[in-house]
């Protein structure tokens, strides 16, 4: 225990030499993932994801807005990742810090590149009315690997969203909403993120905890969809990786996608239809 606080890197190196980590996991093993869907009654869709100790809740609120002028057939999906003093004492309250802004932009990129939903599906009346989906991801406990948890929470929440039926009254040109008739969103792809941390410029470990993220010399996040297509690759500086290592990461990401998809299918099958 003494070495862990005084010389954490040496402590970790001893474990990595034996191809395992202090919490007993192997280098390519993920922490226990649990997901709970639809718990927030006031949100249109919600999901709570736990990746080991890291907990992220995603709540989606759907509102009406005018479509953007340069794309009158599209709606909006506005993600927002919130890292507050609640989840870890290294964050300060106030406007979003660097890590939160990076995470929000990452989620926006994933939504855009993977086409989870076609923004055209969100348009009700071209140029006049469209749905705006505000996806608010709040981190409740930060123990590393925020990006994977956020992506999973977003996907599960989007699958849980129920939008009421809207028709445009031709005479008054106003929208008429029927809150009793609701339908789900058309989710086209299921992007799943897998994060890696690079140790000492050579060793790759999957799903880093917060301690491991601090000691790492680089991080990498790969987002895959179900057909093994790469949606997004996030490598913010850090140590370089050879092409072969990158291929290993991508194959691990494909396996992870299968695990996550299986979990999500089980959860949604077990939910009783409203």
């Amino acid at each position: 225990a003494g070495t862990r606080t005084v010389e954490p890197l040496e402590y970790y190196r001893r474990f990595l030499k034996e191809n395992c980590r202090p919490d007993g996991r192997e280098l390519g093993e993920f922490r226990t993932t649990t997901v709970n869907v639809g718990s927030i009654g006031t949100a249109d869709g919600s999901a709570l994801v736990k990746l080991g100790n890291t907990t992220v809740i995603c709540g989606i609120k759907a509102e009406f807005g005018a479509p953007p002028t340069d794309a009158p057939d599209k709606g909006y999906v506005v993600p927002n990742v919130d890292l507050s003093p609640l989840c870890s004492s290294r964050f300060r309250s106030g406007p979003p810090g660097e890590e939160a802004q990076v995470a929000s932009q990452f989620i926006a990129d994933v939504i855009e590149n993977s086409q989870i939903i076609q923004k055209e599906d969100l348009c009700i009346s071209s140029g006049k009315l469209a749905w705006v989906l505000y996806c608010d991801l709040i981190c409740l406990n930060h123990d590393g690997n925020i990006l994977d948890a956020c992506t999973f929470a977003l996907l599960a929440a989007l699958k849980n969203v129920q939008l009421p039926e809207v028709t445009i009254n031709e005479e008054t040109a106003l929208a008429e909403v029927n809150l009793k008739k609701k339908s789900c969103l058309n989710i086209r792809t299921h992007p799943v993120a897998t994060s890696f941390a690079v140790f000492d410029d050579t060793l790759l470990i999957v799903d880093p905890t917060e301690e491991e993220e601090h000691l790492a010399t680089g991080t990498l996040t790969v987002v895959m969809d179900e057909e093994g297509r790469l949606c997004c690759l996030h490598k913010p500086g850090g140590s370089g990786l050879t092409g072969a290592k990158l291929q290993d990461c991508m194959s691990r990401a494909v396996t992870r996608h299968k695990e996550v998809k299986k979990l999500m299918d089980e959860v949604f099958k077990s939910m009783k239809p409203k």
Partner: protein
Amino acid sequence: MPGDHRRIRGPEESQPPQLYAAGEGEEPAPRDPARLRPVYARAGLLSQAKGSAYLEAGGTKVLCAVSGPRPAEGGERGGGPAGAGGEAPAALRGRLLCDFRRAPFSGRRRRAPPGGGEERELALALQEALEPAVRLGRYPRAQLEVSALLLEDGGSALAAALTAAALALADAGVEMYDLVVGCGLSRAPAPAPAWLLDPTLLEEERASAGLTVALMPVLNQVAGVLGSGEGGPTESWAEAVRLGLEGCQRLYPVLQQCLVRAARRRGAAAPL
């Protein structure tokens, strides 16, 4: 939001679909004015916080985390006569910094992240109610940070946040004189103005007045009172406070059990 380049931009403004929905609003169902909704409380669930608590009462879900004590920011303050029991002089006492936030998806309408005046008022109310219970004299020149997050508003949000914050402080091992239990009340509008204990969101929205009381159950002292609205004559407010304090006393055994369970869990996990 115009000018906010730290967040992803959405449209300039947006309206909730409820504005365009046809149909009447719902009416709150008649009920026993002194009924308390069943409460689920759990302490010690966040690994990164020193102490944490989650409280669920009806539809209201609140999560609270405590961190610290850490060295206080701000200037040096001079000495003074020492307090009783070896505590630091009044000017060197610790500080309690409270933060109350509503999740954007917690209410009927989405609230964009920078909260505004209401959240700061409630944070101040939290601080004023928790200070009498915490032995701040034992944490000289230090500050304790309490962050409350409202995940879903189902009525009596401030009361739930108060209770959760006190549980989180106890879970963090902060020295306290007593727990603080909060209870919300609201007064139904005419024609039948009566004070209702632990209102739901629907009852709160239609109320003519609202009140939150905070009580320290063992010491039987009121830690805080916050209320506003048209409550009628003074006796009516006094009766409401009395009703609230009874509610707090009834809630106390549940919270005691929750802390005992959390302590057992911590004890079982400790030998590692």
